[in-house]
Each structure stands twice: as structure tokens, then as C-alpha cells.
């Protein structure tokens, strides 16, 4: 079942965040929403999760309204702004996430998949940035979602941790939509790249097509420099 953005616009007050954005995510694909900070990627993810409603246009997730897909536990999400309760242990958070989904993995299975077995008794405030991100990932995939939304999932991670993270994501075999401002990450892990600039889609194609598009040179150089 399709996930689709159809002529979606959204604005914060008088400031446009997305203008007439359209794209489709077929089942099984890994799609990168690539753009600089403030391009509109996180707004797009919020709209896909039903956290925001479009001012115009429509958003469909797995064939229905975003809220229905979330309520049915068919999607998982790792939010850029998703915090964790500091007084809880890793095990308690993962156990809660597992309990909230009807079709669910066991807590031990999720801890293992996310590489958190060793730190399961630790409180969140005793974890490193990378370990916290793995807890967020564990929450996102606890319910065996059909579709994963990842908003800047590797922003706090070093190179090695990024590779480990993506190995875990790919092992799940889900449909994945991720927002990133790393060109190399989109190039390496996405089947398809949608480049967003100032709230508009300026390119949509395979990583090779996007990288080979001369008209995007300026935007892609800016992303490469921004990431460094």
C-alpha cells in the first residue's frame, strides 16, 4: 500500500515550510528526504506521522490517513525531537514500547536487535548520545512496523556507529523514509533520493541520477560542505 504526498503545502504563520510537494513511496523502498537544515524535511516527516495537518493537499500513509496507520501500529518513528524519560531504564522503555504495539517483538528481541542488551539496566541519563539514539531506534521498531520514519537518525553518531545503525535498519527489511542532510548517507543507503530545498522538491530519482544532475551541483555541494 502506498504512502503519498499529494500537492502538500504547510506554513508556520506566514513562513512557508512546504509548497506543493508531491511524491510517492512504494512498499519496500528506502527513500531519503535530502536537504539542508530548514529545508522542510522534518515538517514532511511530521505530516507523514499525523503530528501536523497540511494547509492544502493530502497525505496518505499505507493507503489511509496518517493517524490511522499510527494508531494501528503500522508505522514506527524515530523523531529528531523525540526525547527519552531520564529516570527510566533502557529495559523499561523498550518493554513499554513492546507493550504498546499489538503485533510485537519481545523486549529481549528488541534489545538484542538494537544492540542494547549490555546497557538494559542503565537509566537513560547514564547513556552516551549514540546509546540514546539506539534506544529511540528500539522504540521505533518495537512493533514490527511496515513503514519506518527516521528523522535525522544518525546526526549524533560517529562514522562507526552510523554504519552499525544502518546495518540494523537494513536487516529489518522495512519500507523506510528518512530525513537527512548527509549526501553520503543518502547516496549509500537510499534506493531513491528526494531533494528538498526551501520547501520544494527540486529532484527525485536514484542516488546516481541525483548525483549526476548538473543542475543540482550547487545544492549538493552546499549539503556536502554543510555536513563537514
Amino acid at each position, binding site marked *: 500500500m502506498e504512502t503519498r504526498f499529494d500537492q502538500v503545502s504547510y506554513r508556520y504563520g506566514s513562513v512557508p515550510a512546504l509548497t506543493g510537494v508531491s511524491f510517492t513511496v512504494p512498499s519496500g523502498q528506502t527513500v531519503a528526504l535530502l536537504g539542508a537544515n530548514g529545508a522542510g524535511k522534518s515538517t514532511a516527516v511530521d505530516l507523514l506521522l499525523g503530528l501536523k495537518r497540511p494547509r492544502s493537499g493530502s497525505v496518505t500513509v499505507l493507503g489511509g490517513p496518517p493517524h490511522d496507520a499510527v494508531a494501528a501500529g503500522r508505522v514506527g518513528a524515530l523523531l529528531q525531537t523525540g*526525547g527519552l524519560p531520564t529516570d527510566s531504564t533502557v529495559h523499561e522503555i523498550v518493554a513499554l514500547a513492546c507493550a*504498546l*504495539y499489538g503485533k510485537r517483538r519481545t523486549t529481549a528481541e528488541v534489545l538484542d536487535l538494537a544492540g542494547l542488551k549490555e546497557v538494559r539496566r542503565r537509566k537513560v541519563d547514564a547513556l552516551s548520545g549514540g546509546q540514546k539514539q539506539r534506544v529511540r531506534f528500539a522504540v521505533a521498531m518495537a512493533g514490527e512496523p511496515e513503514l519506518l520514519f527516521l528523522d535525522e537518525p544518525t546526526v549524533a553518531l560517529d562514522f562507526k556507529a552510523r554504519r552499525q545503525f544502518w546495518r540494523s535498519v537494513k536487516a529489518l527489511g522495512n519500507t523506510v523514509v528518512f530525513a537527512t542532510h548527509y549526501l553520503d548517507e543518502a547516496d549509500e543507503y537510499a534506493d531513491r533520493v528526494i531533494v528538498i530545498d526551501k520547501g520544494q522538491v527540486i529532484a527525485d530519482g536514484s542516488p546516481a541520477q541525483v548525483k549526476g544532475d548538473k543542475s543540482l551541483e550547487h545544492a549538493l555541494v552546499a549539503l556536502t560542505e554543510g555536513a563537514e
Partner: protein
Amino acid sequence: MIAYAKFEVLRTLHNVRYLVFVVVMPVVFEVIWMKQGPGVTAAMAVYAATGAGLLGSGNTIAEDRATGWLRQLRVTPLSDRAWLLGKIVQGLLTVIPGVLAVVLVGTFAMNFERWPLLVAVAVVGSLPFVLIGVFAGTLFRGKTAVLALSVLFFALMFVGGVIGGETIWSYAPTYSLMSLGQHVLASQPIEAGPLLNLGAWTVLAAAAVLLRWRRA
């Protein structure tokens, strides 16, 4: 909802500030002032019930809004209603340790026959405080909520006569709850006035929560 309430109760029990402020402190105060009679046990049970009720849920809601955990929960199958109910249940359950500790210490020293009834009255009577806490948690973010609820807590303690000796405002919910507690310990019939007043506070606080909670 049960899994969520259980998670939140465990989270509260891990919180050292909660344990010190609403479990240890009222017990210490009770031991210090116990010689003044059974009224101290009723007052400290109200202290524990009000403190845990106001701060138990309210603090964590404000914190979760500030850190983004509430946003993360919104993209799970936990419905808004289950979240709200979980928070209220959490607030009521986290009242029990402090109230129980105070009442058991008082019963050990003064041999109260009706101590289970006092525990029940204090826990059920904490509902308006839990609802006020939930409302404040949805109104303020982060440390602002802690500050607002702490000021409200001491104000209600003071005007209700729980601390400071004299009752300034007899419509304060703390005064009504303390009055019920004193009647229970004295084996006197429970009066309608304090019950009605607590009921009115509960209705008002519930209305405030219903108006505000979806904007949290």
C-alpha cells in the same frame, strides 16, 4: 493503558526527589510533631497526598513536553485518552507510598484502629490534586511546572492549615481532606461539607484538564 501506567509508576519510584519530598519528609515531620496528637498524622497524610498528587503526574507531563518524549509517544498506538487516563492512574498510585508510610508510623505510635480507612480517604481524596497537577503539566513546560506546582503545594498547605497552625481558607481542598482524616482517626462520622468541597474541586480540576489536555 495499564502498561503505560505501570511504566510511569516505576519511573516515579526511581525519582529520588519524589521519594525524599513526598515519602521521607512527611514521615520525618510526623515523628518530630507526633506528641501533638493524632491530628499530626492526618495533616502529614494530607501533606503526602497533596505533594505526590500535584507533583507525581504534573512534573513528568511538563518534562515530557519539554524533552519530546510526549511527541515520541504520540507516534505509537497509545491513544490520547489512554495517555491521560494513565497519567491520572499514575498520580493516584504514587500517592500511596507516602500516605501509607505516614499512617503506619502514626499507627505504630498511637494505635489507630481505622488506619486503613485513613489511607483510603487520603488516596481517593488526592484526586483533585492529581487533576490540578495534570492541568499544570499541560499548561507549563519543564522547570516552570515544577516551580508553579511547588508554590501551589506550599500555598495549599498553608491556607488549609496543614502547616502553620491556623486555617486561613476553609474552602481549601487541603483543609477538607485534613478534616476528613481527623474525623476518621477520631472514629467520628464523616461530614458532608468537606466531601462536597472536595467533589467541587474535583469537578473544577477535571473541567480544566478536559479544556487543556489536547493542547499538551
